């Protein structure tokens, strides 16, 4: 009997040693590790079944509980939570049989409490505590935060006991030299530390999403001093920042994010969170700056292996923290947009905040990335990626991206490049355009074309892209002062746009002016349509003006103002045409009206290419005012 016990102890220790051996070599591939893990798991399990074949006996409890611990750790590391839980339950029942207590319940909480009470005085008290820590890990993995809170008392006792063992530790060390002590594959103390901080982080995220930001804050700040991996400490800082942001203290939040980044340079989500705060603060310069950093970081991240960004720890290598950080609200906090999305928002921000040339560079990078072969890895969802950093792709449709890039190029005074991009869009969409698009306004869903069914992109979207491309080309020719060509392209744009019909004609055009309460998507499309109309008419009008065809110019500009009353260029040029047609009073009224409009900076709510062109022939407002003064010398 004794020799059998010794044999089992020996077998356990050999397995544990075997497991530690390859772990020591960093070079092993994750695949190899996984198979190794699977193998050890089944071995431990086999051993355990052998041991549990004999009736429970306090004499070999230490061995049995150690093997249960090892097997369960292996199961948890493979995310086989149910199996691990079963093992723990069996073990607790057997412990109760050893101590002679009656389990008489199947409720795990009560069971655990009974077990803890009954083993307090026994020699294997510590081993039962190890198992409790595994139970804690399972609860955490399953996000049973309430259970953990209910068990808070026992858990803190556990923490105390195990950390109180520091003194015993050296004794343990010496004992480990004897072969008759069953070895554990991970240090339970490290595990408990890991669990502690992960619990605080998960709890923090959950409670934060429930709105208890101020309560959480102190916990998190306390947790930031706990001994743990830097990545986890960085998460505590990040969460504190999120709390502060929630409590409307953006500057302090920024400070926290900064600390998080300083703690762990891989904590990209802190960067992203600070971007969101800068956006909220409308500090576009800082936002662009941060986006730039985020972009460069995520660029390098692509090159690195996915596992290297993973917070890894030496002691608890087996159980990765990502196992315990599975809460939904946490992962939404930790999510970072994909590298391409970051690049896109960086480019867009630059363009919107008058850094056109830089924006153009970013746009070109983005397009190049899209065409390169390497981006398969971005398109495909990688399996190896742990779920902690879920990447969100918010990239717009490709034609829109092209058009934005085109608009940026035009702003950066590169009309030829812009035209190339636009013609690419046109050549792609042209032969697919239906004869007409009928918009059913009574329906809330947008762009229901009657005959043509395009999956994904409706005919309307295709129309809008093509029209916008023509509009941009018109702008380019205007920029190059090729008025005739400009008129041709604006006309093409207009011809396309008039093919969009409305079903409810009764309501007339007036009701279709977008208001804030209309459906976003429909309103968006409709708004774009209106703006395209307004801008193309305005552009053609301006071109006609340059060609001295005042009548056509006036007609187009007035059309434009009808569709898009807030068009500044159209307003000013309409006045100018009127002035040239010697309708000076009308001209003055027109100018006055235009000046009274609030000046609109470029916004993010509309695509760049449907906003007022920054180029083209300009009218000097001071000169116009001067003329008005001459008209009304009062």
């Amino acid at each position: 009997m004794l020799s059998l016990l010794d044999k089992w102890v020996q077998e356990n220790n050999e397995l544990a040693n075997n497991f530690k051996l390859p772990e020591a070599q960093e070079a092993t591939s994750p695949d190899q590790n996984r198979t190794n893990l699977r193998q050890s798991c089944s071995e431990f399990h086999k051993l355990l079944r052998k041991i549990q074949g004999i009736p429970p006996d306090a004499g070999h409890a230490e061995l049995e509980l150690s093997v249960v611990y090892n097997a369960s750790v292996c199961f948890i590391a493979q995310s086989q939570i149910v199996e691990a839980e079963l093992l723990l339950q069996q073990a607790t029942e057997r412990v109760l049989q050893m101590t002679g207590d009656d389990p008489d319940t199947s409720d795990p909480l009560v069971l655990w409490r009974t077990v803890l009470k009954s083993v307090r005085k026994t020699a294997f008290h510590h081993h039962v505590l190890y198992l409790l820590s595994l139970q804690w890990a399972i609860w955490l993995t399953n996000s049973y935060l309430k259970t953990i809170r209910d068990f808070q008392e026992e858990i803190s006792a556990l923490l105390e006991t195990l950390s109180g063992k520091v003194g015993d530790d050296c004794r343990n060390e010496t004992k480990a030299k004897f072969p008759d002590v069953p070895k554990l594959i991970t240090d339970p103390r490290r595990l408990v530390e890991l669990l502690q901080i992960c619990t605080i982080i998960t709890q923090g995220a959950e409670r934060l999403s429930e709105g208890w930001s101020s309560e959480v804050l102190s916990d998190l700040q306390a947790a930031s001093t706990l001994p743990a991996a830097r990545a986890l400490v960085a998460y505590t800082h990040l969460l504190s920042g999120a709390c502060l942001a929630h409590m409307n203290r953006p500057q302090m939040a920024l400070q926290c994010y900064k600390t998080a980044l300083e703690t762990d340079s891989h904590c990209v989500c802190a960067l992203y969170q600070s971007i969101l705060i800068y956006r909220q603060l409308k500090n576009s310069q800082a936002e662009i700056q941060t986006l730039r950093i985020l972009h460069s970081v995520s660029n390098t991240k692509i090159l690195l292996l996915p596992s290297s960004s993973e917070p890894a720890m030496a002691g608890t290598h087996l159980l990765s923290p990502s196992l315990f950080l599975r809460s939904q609200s946490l992962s939404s906090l930790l999510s970072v947009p994909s590298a391409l999305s970051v690049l896109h928002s960086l480019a867009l921000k630059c363009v919107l905040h008058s850094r056109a040339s830089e924006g153009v560079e970013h746009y070109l990078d983005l397009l190049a990335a899209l065409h390169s072969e390497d981006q398969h890895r971005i398109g495909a969802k990688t399996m190896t990626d742990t779920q902690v950093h879920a990447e969100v792709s918010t990239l717009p449709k490709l034609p829109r991206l092209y058009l934005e890039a085109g608009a940026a190029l035009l702003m950066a005074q590169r009309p030829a490049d812009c035209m190339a991009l636009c013609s690419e869009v046109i050549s792609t969409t042209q032969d697919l355009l239906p004869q007409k698009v009928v918009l059913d306004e009574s329906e809330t869903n947008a762009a229901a074309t009657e005959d043509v069914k395009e999956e994904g992109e409706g005919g309307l979207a295709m129309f809008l892209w093509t029209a916008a491309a023509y509009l941009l080309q018109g702008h380019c020719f205007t920029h190059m002062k090729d008025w005739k060509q400009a008129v041709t392209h604006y006309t093409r744009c207009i011809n396309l746009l008039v093919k969009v019909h409305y079903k409810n004609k009764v309501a007339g055009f007036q009701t279709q002016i977008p208001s804030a309460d209309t459906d976003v998507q429909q309103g968006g499309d409709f708004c774009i349509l209106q703006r395209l109309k307004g801008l193309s008419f305005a552009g053609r009008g301006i071109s006609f003006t340059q060609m001295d065809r005042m009548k056509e110019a006036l007609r187009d500009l007035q059309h434009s103002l009808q569709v898009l009353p807030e068009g500044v260029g159209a307003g000013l040029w309409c006045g100018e045409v009127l002035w040239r047609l010697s309708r000076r009073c009308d001209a003055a009224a027109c100018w006055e009206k235009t000046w009274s409009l609030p000046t609109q900076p470029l916004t993010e709510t509309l695509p760049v290419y449907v906003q007022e062109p920054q180029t083209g022939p300009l009218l000097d407002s001071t000169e116009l005012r001067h003329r008005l003064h001459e008209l009304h010398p009062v």
Partner: protein
Amino acid sequence: MEGRCSVETWAEFGLLGKSGRPKVKRGFGANIFICTGCEEVYVFSANERKLTVVLQLPGPVNDLVESHDKQLLVACRCGVYCVDLQLLLHRAHGSSGDASSIPAELKISSEFVVVDADGVSSLLLVGSVLLTLSQTDTSWLLTLYKSPQQTQPTAYEVLGSFHLPQISPVVHDDTKLKAGRTGRSILLCAHFGNRPPPSSSCDAVDTSYPHFCLKPVLFKLLFGVEAALAKSPVVLCGLPDGRLCFLPLGLPGSRLRVLHSLEQPVVFAGASVVVETDPGHAQCLAVVGEQGRVVLIKADKAGPERRGSLARFTEGCVSGPVECGFVDKNCLYYSTGSDLLTLTLSEESAGREDGERGEEALRSPTSLNVCGVAALTEPTCSAAGDVQLLGLTVGGQLRSIRLPMRRRGEGSPRPPSSQVGRSVRDLLSAIGDVCERASALKTVIKSKNQILKQLNQVVNISFLLTKTEEPFPFEEKPIGCHATASWSRSLQKDTLNLKCVLTNSSPYVLERGWTLSVTVFPLSCSSSTGEGTSSTNFMFPFYNLRPGETLEVSLPAAAAGDTSYPLTVNCSLILSLSGFLGEEEVARLPGWQKSCFSLPLNTLTVDWLHASQVISPTGSQSNKETDTLQAFLSSRQIGCSKGDGASKPERYSASVRVSSELLRETLTLKSFHLDTKGPELASPNICFSLLDWLFFEAHGGVKVGREGNEIDSSGLAIRARAPNGATVKLSAKQINVAEENPGKEEGLVCVEVRIESSSVSAVCGLHHAVLRRIQSLLKKAPEKAASTEKVQRLGLRGALQQAEIQQSRLSEALSVGMSSSQTNRFLLGVYQELRANPLLVI
């Protein structure tokens, strides 16, 4: 008759395997890769017309693909293996200097694994990205791998994977089986515009079959504007559940989407130019399903009321099943297994009625009269306009199929005389081909019929022999054995020969595959002691035993001096499958090669009486000198061993008493012809006939082959030599058993057979034999009221008394410690006593 195609067989690879998928693919430099559905991949050089390399993989091969740097990627059950082809071919050439006919062989082991995934069914290389399609329990998995830069095979890095949930296939039942053998799936890649995306040096690969360039409009219509803008290659995969899915490779956030569902396993998909407007742009995507559904996907102008285009799906049906297919510029080739057919894809794609015309074209396939094609390669066009296809037939032959150039629009111009001659020749050869095929089929059918007939006989016979209960309780089975035992002398050694005769009295013929198996083993060690150590088995294969015929075999049952009688002879008929069907047929039934069925016939017994030789009373003329010598030697031996030189050995005896009434009733008929004195036999006659019956009649199916009447003229004693060499005297005499005490009634007349010999074993053996025979006699005796029960009862009482006494003596003797020799002697005494006072057999 437009022109016949010429077929040339290039190589043979044996029958196609069931587990993998047959494939033929063209590679670089006239290399052709062939998988026959087994574990092998063959590399065949089209220039040299010979097999250059054979690769042996660890599992059935599903797919293979050649990369641009001449690496061969092979998808197996257990993963994807990468082999450097150049190295292989180089090695093959190096070794082929002298022995050019032997291809290089290479066993592919796990060190060549580059992708460790189970059940990869299709492969595709797009640039440096390797795509694998595999089936999991719940979904289809399309996985992207990055090819490593260096050339040595290292594991490929996973880029990502796409899932498509499985649906239960909406196919007919009979195809489910076929789909079960790893659902055949296909992967191909559509490119936008003229050429594939600029990547390293993969043009050569990316322009041939699984890659094609679609006409831009069709591309945009099918795969969307975004894919077109990004110029992204689109992967198409056809699944066994009938779905044709696509995935734009270069788009962020793209998903695997279903393009069309064929509702039957997709066998082939490919693109055809149809009519050349832009060079290299395919205008038509053709998909073929297993049951013969063909879908042609083309871009079409929308109706006159609106501009724009739409994709038109023309569905049609050809008579299935379709084994494989291929398209070239304007034709779709497909094989139904029994014929290779071609469909001309319609050219005038402009008109409105195009759709109908397309269906029309689908209805009129042209037969090419090539049968058994299981896999096709991409057609190649020679300068002369001939189209060459490579096909792998069901029989494992690599065939080159050359189609003559089709002249369209030219009506039927008079061909030059040489061509006429050629076409006649082709025609004749085709007829010959068909004839050959037909005759081959005929012989196959004939042999199948024959086998069925024979199988019927076999089933009948086995039914007859295994049906043991009712019809033949006593009489013998219609097929059975009987034997004659006789002594013969060869090589100075006497042996007891057994001549077994198998009689077929059943109405069935025992045809091929039958074997008579005779097992001889001593009764004493039949089952419990010896594990066949002393049993001998004789097998006699035979052929065609018609009803009424007999088969005679003779076998040595035992040598002289072998005293382990009685012998049991088990006869059985064995039908072996390999003998019945022939080795080749059986080889097709794995697991049945060694199987045979055994049908037990009957069991014969050769006992002491059979084995003892009668010593002629008239003289010792039959006794040769050797016999005397032997006798002398044996007596010397006995003398030596005994030591004390006892001149007269002890005599043992045993006797059996049979009532003469019984004998008279049962033996009369038999001895009637022997003795014509009448039914009332005198007492010596009874004794005589009993001895005669004991010695010379057949017992237990075994007769003794003795010549002449060698019974003592008095007819009351026979001297015989037992097989162990001892002389035995059997004597019969009639006695009157009068019961001692009551004495009133008339005593019963009975015959006592007495066995006397100096050898105990001979006495025992013969006694046993005589008893056995009389037992059988009793079975034959008609039932009658036992008038003599009293006598019997008295006898029984006496016997019981004696038995009690003996038992008490026995237990007494055994309980008291005795030396072994004493025990033996004592036991012998008891035995003799038992034998000397026999019970009367009535």
